[in-house]
Structures are given as structure tokens and as C-alpha cells.
């Protein structure tokens, strides 16, 4: 019985990915749909999360080596880092801090509990890193994962339109802002618009992941 969890995860993700490839609409995000439908199945059949994780945890275990592997795209983009070093050195910390502080304080102002504040703080970085950061600072990694994906979906759905409305024309500015705000899902969208924006966006995502995971554990003690 204990391979149920991994089977369910792979099968549903496969089906939702196929479906997404046909429809290509942002709200059919296959990761989010898989999470929600598995959650509903566990509830309906009274299966515990622990029983599900017995085999499904093999998949989440692979996040460790996958995060280490992000070194390869980062290394390959080293020329882009050199070319836009000034924009990166100032833009990534600015955007990274803004994402943390704006989410933290708006939620706090509206009366969110501390554990929710800790879970929402890393929501703009790539899911794989955000889960680890959330765990380190005492948040709920599961909640962080879902909030990160929702943030990515917003960027994928309306990020380009928001940048147009704000009259941002510069391709580097568009890419960097998208990557810092909406990580991989935002990058997947803006790369369709422009190759340079896409490259800068992917880079901004990786660098903000590093920046936030190094800074947030210290910053959070000041914010709390």
C-alpha cells in the first residue's frame, strides 16, 4: 500500500501537465492543481498526510540535489551577470527586500498570526529554495510552497501587462523585476516576449533565491 503516494503524485502531475499543454491558461497550473486534488483525495478517503508521504517523500527529497543543480544555469549566465552588474547589485537586494517587507507588513497590519508572517516572507523566491528557507525561519513550508506558486501564477498571468501599464520599456528592467517578483513562472512568461528579458529574469530568480536565503534568517529576527 505504501507506494500509493508516489503513484498518485506522478499520475496526476502527468495528466494535469498534458491538459495544461493543450489549454495553456495560467490558472490550470499543473503543480497547483496536483496539490489541490491530492489534498482533496486525502481528505475524502481519510488518508493521513504521513501515509501519503511514506513514498511521496522520495520526490521532495530530490529538491536537495535539484537546488544544488541550479548552479549550472547560474554559471552559464555569468556573462550576463558581468554585463549588467550594476543593475544586479542594486536591483536584486532592492526587489528582494521589497518583496519580503511589503508582504510581511501588509499581512501583519491585517492581523495575520506570526507563523503566517514567517510563511509569507519568502514567497517571491523559487519554490525549491523557499521551502528550505521557510523551514529554517520557523514558517510552514507547505503554506510557503502554495503562496510561492500563487505569486508565480500572478506574474505569469498579468506580469507583462502590469509592466506595460507602468510604461516600463527597458528589457533588462522588465526581466529583472519579473524574475525577482515571480521566479520561474514569471520567467516562463516574459521569455516569450523577449530573449534578453527572459535571460535576465532567470538570473534574477536564482540570485534573489540566494540573496533571500542568506538575508532573511537574520532579517526575520529584527522584524518579529
Amino acid at each position, binding site marked *: 500500500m505504501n507506494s500509493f503516494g508516489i503513484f498518485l503524485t506522478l499520475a496526476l502531475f502527468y495528466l494535469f501537465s498534458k491538459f495544461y499543454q493543450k489549454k495553456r491558461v495560467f490558472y490550470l497550473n499543473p503543480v497547483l492543481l496536483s*496539490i489541490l486534488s491530492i489534498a482533496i483525495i486525502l481528505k475524502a478517503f481519510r488518508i493521513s498526510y504521513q501515509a501519503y508521504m511514506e513514498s511521496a517523500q522520495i520526490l521532495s527529497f530530490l529538491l536537495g540535489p535539484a537546488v544544488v543543480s541550479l548552479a549550472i544555469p547560474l554559471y552559464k549566465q555569468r556573462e550576463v551577470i558581468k554585463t549588467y552588474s550594476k543593475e544586479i547589485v*542594486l536591483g536584486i537586494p532592492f*526587489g528582494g527586500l521589497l518583496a519580503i517587507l*511589503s508582504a510581511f507588513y501588509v499581512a501583519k497590519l491585517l492581523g495575520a498570526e506570526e507563523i503566517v508572517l514567517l510563511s*509569507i516572507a519568502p*514567497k517571491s523566491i523559487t519554490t525549491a529554495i523557499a521551502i*528550505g528557507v521557510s523551514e529554517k525561519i520557523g514558517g510552514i513550508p507547505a503554506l510557503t510552497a502554495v503562496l510561492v506558486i500563487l505569486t508565480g501564477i500572478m506574474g505569469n498571468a498579468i506580469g507583462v501587462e502590469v509592466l506595460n501599464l507602468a510604461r516600463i520599456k527597458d528589457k533588462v528592467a522588465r526581466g529583472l523585476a*519579473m524574475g525577482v517578483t515571480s521566479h520561474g513562472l514569471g520567467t516562463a512568461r516574459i521569455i516569450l516576449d523577449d530573449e534578453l528579458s527572459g535571460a535576465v529574469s532567470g538570473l534574477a530568480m536564482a540570485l534573489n533565491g540566494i540573496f533571500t536565503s542568506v538575508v532573511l534568517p537574520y532579517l526575520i529576527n529584527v522584524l518579529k
Partner: protein
Amino acid sequence: MYKGLAIIFGFLFLGEALVKILSLPIPGNVVGMILLTLALIFNVVKLEDVEKEAEMLVRNMSVMFIPPGVGIVLYWSLIKSQAVPIFVALIVSFFVTIILTAKLVEFLRRERK
């Protein structure tokens, strides 16, 4: 294939060990990523030794988020009771971050020209 995986898991282990020894609050896998990037830059590791395995892992990362994400079942009532602050904060933070970051970088780019 085993060479590439051994290097990747080696850096993961190294990152985890450093975090433990120095009691850093940073995730061990991020430290492993930083060290592997440096190893590539300084030619300690050759790109072709890890490229295929690393790209396979990165390409298939999405499915790995699902099991931790399903953990929301344990926090259903907390999320329901805090839905308003959570979603308002997500939306406000999204607009503020994307617009102001883009404005700053655009300003820096004009400065340069």
C-alpha cells in the same frame, strides 16, 4: 551519469556539513549551490561532468514541489481563518515589488546611457 550525480550529491553533503558545523541559518542545499557555482568558475569542476545530470534535475523540479505542498492539509483551518490577510498581502506585495523594482532598474539604465 554516476560521476555527475556523485558531484551534485557531494556538494549537497558539503553544504549540509558546513551549515551544521558553522551553525548557519541558511539551507544546506543553497550553500551547496553557491559552492558548486564557485567550483565551476574556478575550474575545480568541469561543466561537462555535471551538466546533463543537473539539467535533468532542474527540468523536473516542478513535480518535487507537490508532496511538500500537499502538507497544506495539515493547516486547513489556519489558512481559512487567515485567508484575507494572506491574499491581500500576496497581491499588494506583487504589484509593489514588480513596479518599483522595474522603475529602479530603468532609472539605473538611463543613468548609464
